[in-house]
């Protein structure tokens, strides 16, 4: 799954700026960035007492010291185009860290997977 996300978001560019995308953690120097991680997984479809499909929920945390709305919209757009479904109720409100000056928003997406 991480491989898929890394492929989709390789060279993720917003307003001509490449936004680093990293798993779980990013050592930044003030630039905008996105970190992602699995937030939850849930059974979705079973048959003959076997799990056939399940839903993976992923958090994508956008951090930026300036206007981050274009990053949020671009991220939603590219993930939706690749089969992810935005989960409004699992996403966060707008947040701001007074000590670092970072704006922060968590976007949550669901991805349906088949169990082989």
């Amino acid at each position, binding site marked *: 799954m991480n491989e898929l996300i890394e492929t989709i978001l390789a060279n993720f560019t917003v307003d001509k700026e490449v936004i680093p995308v990293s798993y779980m*953690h990013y050592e930044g120097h003030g630039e905008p960035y996105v970190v992602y991680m699995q937030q*939850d997984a849930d059974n979705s479809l079973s048959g003959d007492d076997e799990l056939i499909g399940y839903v993976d*929920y992923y958090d994508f*945390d956008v951090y930026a010291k300036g206007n981050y709305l274009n990053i949020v919209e671009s991220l939603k757009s590219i993930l939706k185009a690749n089969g992810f479904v935005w989960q409004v109720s699992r996403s966060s409100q707008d*947040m701001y860290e007074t000590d*670092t000056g970072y704006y922060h928003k968590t976007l949550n997406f669901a991805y349906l997977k088949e169990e082989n």
Partner: protein
Amino acid sequence: MARFQMELPTDLMKDIETLEKNSKKIFGEMTKAGAEVVEKNMTNNAPNDLKSHIKISKTYDTPTDGGVNTKVYISGYIPFSDPNRKYFSRSGGSGKTYRSTEGVPASFLAQLYEYGRSTAPFPKKPFMRKSFRKAEIEAAMMKAQKEASGGIIDE
């Protein structure tokens, strides 16, 4: 002109009357049952320092929509781990500074666990959103509905 008149069976009339009289109680028991599921899941999933701070409210009326509600909430403070620390402060949305001498507000800590932060001295460990299992909540509410209605409503 042909006329048709029908009388509802007394039992059914009584059932409807019972439901009408007890609707608030039935809905209240249902929201309480749903909240209990969430509280249990949240307590299981929460980091150890937050487990005892997860509470459930009394069932209360919501006059604006004529409904009833039961809340799961996080309250209290986590004592400072550094004995020399005097207070905790943070800026609110309105520009005011919130200051506490009792410790770090558990609700603030819960948000940090749930969504993380940039400097991450603190590992992100979401536990609240995953505690809302729709099917589990609905099943508990349906069971409470049947019990509170004396079996009149079943599913």
